[in-house]
């Protein structure tokens, strides 16, 4: 556990403290994201934990140890640290970069290299990169090495200072997903600094929103933060579409999927017309014998087709947008619905087979039920965006 007890940091020559009487607790095994505009003290707060910056007043405890009583170098060897540009040692191979702290604490080179190999696998780096040098890797790969290096001596605490902000958005999203996967496995106590609200909401178990002047505006799980910002500052900081983003925390599995619009491609146009008349569909989702979606077919088009032909021959429109019926969120379901030509979206299983279809009406009803309930029900459990 990391605990800030009334911590203040004043820089000499500056009248306003960078961090002002900060009280904050990071429970074991959780990811706390510090977020806020630049100059709000979030990075200073992070760096006080491993004494890269010394605090002016107050106390910080890491696992019940007062860090002011610890030898800085020893303290730091027990705290993993990842920074924006990875900060890899350009003169050392990837495996020796990763093995830095193990060697510092006396593991010996062989054991450190074995450990480096394990970590490269954990962070998704190919084993043949072990002997390469940092400049031979892409930015995203370097950042993976940075994470591996921070984890090498298995520290209980991990500090991450805007670790993914220097890589492009696609790689950033991949690295965020990898962090969530690794964190689910290792359950480290993580403090993560970012200026990107989206990132904070994605990776944090809790998010601490800083105000300019180094004070806290709100500390809450992401879903609650989006549902109940304490004031206009936090609401503004979260951005205009926080309502939509909040849907990321509600699972799509609560939707009741409709199977009526599903039409196997082997039935004839005549059969389809009959079914449409009976159930009042205006669109069919044509599926093949494997239940894979082929595309949407407007019922109106059936009149132009020969009655004896099968739906397999009918022209269909974009069946591509679907959501996973058990692991995706309402946000993904809503997105798929918006993108679908029929205003309905297919929920699919692991193999991409169609389970059923949802529509605007069904989604709105589900959203209404969930969001008018309490924000607590959607904790940190489902965070698939």
């Amino acid at each position, binding site marked *: 556990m990391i605990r800030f007890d009334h911590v203040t940091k004043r820089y000499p020559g500056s009248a306003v403290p960078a961090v002002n009487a900060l009280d904050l607790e990071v429970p074991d095994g959780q990811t706390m994201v510090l977020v806020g505009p630049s100059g709000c003290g979030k990075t200073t707060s992070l760096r006080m934990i491993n004494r890269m910056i010394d605090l002016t007043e107050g106390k910080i405890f890491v696992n019940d140890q007062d860090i002011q009583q610890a030898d800085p*170098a020893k303290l730091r060897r027990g705290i993993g640290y990842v920074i*924006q540009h990875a900060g890899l040692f350009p003169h050392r191979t990837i495996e020796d970069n990763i093995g830095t702290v193990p060697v510092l604490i006396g593991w010996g080179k062989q054991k450190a290299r074995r450990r480096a190999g394990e970590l490269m696998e954990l962070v998704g780096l190919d084993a043949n990169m072990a002997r390469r040098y940092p400049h031979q*890797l892409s930015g995203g790969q370097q950042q993976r090495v940075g994470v591996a290096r921070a984890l090498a001596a298995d520290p209980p605490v991990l500090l991450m200072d805007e670790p993914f902000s220097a890589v492009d958005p696609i*790689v950033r999203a991949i690295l965020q997903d990898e962090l969530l996967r690794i964190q689910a496995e290792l359950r480290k106590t993580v403090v993560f600094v970012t200026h990107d609200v989206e990132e904070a909401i994605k990776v944090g178990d809790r998010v601490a929103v800083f105000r300019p002047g180094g004070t806290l505006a709100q500390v809450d799980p992401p879903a609650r933060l989006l549902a109940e910002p304490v004031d206009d500052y936090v609401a503004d900081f979260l951005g205009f579409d926080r309502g939509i983003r909040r849907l990321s925390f509600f699972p799509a599995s609560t939707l009741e999927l409709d199977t009526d619009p599903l039409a196997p491609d082997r039935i004839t146009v005549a059969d389809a017309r009959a079914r449409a008349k009976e159930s009042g569909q205006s669109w069919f989702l044509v599926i093949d014998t494997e239940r894979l979606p082929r595309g949407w077919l407007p019922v109106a088009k059936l009149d132009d087709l020969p009655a004896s032909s099968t739906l397999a021959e009918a022209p269909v429109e974009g069946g591509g947008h679907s959501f996973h019926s058990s692991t995706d969120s309402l946000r993904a379901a809503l997105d798929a619905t918006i993108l679908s030509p029929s205003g309905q979206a297919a929920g699919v299983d692991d193999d991409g087979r169609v389970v059923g279809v949802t529509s605007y009406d069904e989604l709105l009803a589900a959203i209404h039920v969930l969001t008018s309930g309490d924000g607590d029900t959607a904790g940190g459990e489902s965070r698939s965006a």
Partner: protein
Amino acid sequence: MDWGWISANRGELISLAGNNLYLALIPVVLGLVISIPLGVLSVRWGWVYPPVLSATSVIYAIPSLALFIFLIPFTGIVTSTRDLTLIIPLTLYTLATLVPNVVDGLRSVPEPVRQSATAMGFGAMRRLARVELPIAVPVVMAGLRVATVASISLVSVGELIGNGGLGFLFTDGEQRDFPTEIYAGIGLIVILALAADALLVLLGWLLTPWRRSDPGASHSTREEAAA
């Protein structure tokens, strides 16, 4: 050119070249040993650097002969310490090249690298020895090459006080009106300088394996090839 003379005096020429090399390299080594702490201090406390830089430049501007003559009362020209009369000034001259190179080399260490080294628990000395100096090697090596070549050629000026390595061939050749000796001296100094420079290039190459980029590397750096 009297090749017969060169071949007949092979032993003498080699011995003079050896002496020249000795008188030139000891100052470079001493200069490096002095420049590293001066450079480290200059980087750590920025205000140290301007006076250090001025001092080394001023020393560099003093003619070598003047410094030799100044030192003769202390170290002599026929005494056992006579080599020092040459070595001390040459050492001071190397500082003008080496100190700025050590400073630039240490400053070439990227800030994130320095910070991550600290954050991983390197103490100041260990960080210097294991991270900062190794990364500074290419820049320091460039200064070392200049200082070495300059030192090898400067040694010959020492002949004016009777201890100048290959410089002997110039004064002797001039007195005897025997140009071959002078050409031999020039040739040998150039050969020594080129050989020393080549060795330093090789040493730099050996010390910086990370700078040898393999041809396959550019392909493997494709964004997230392993992702």
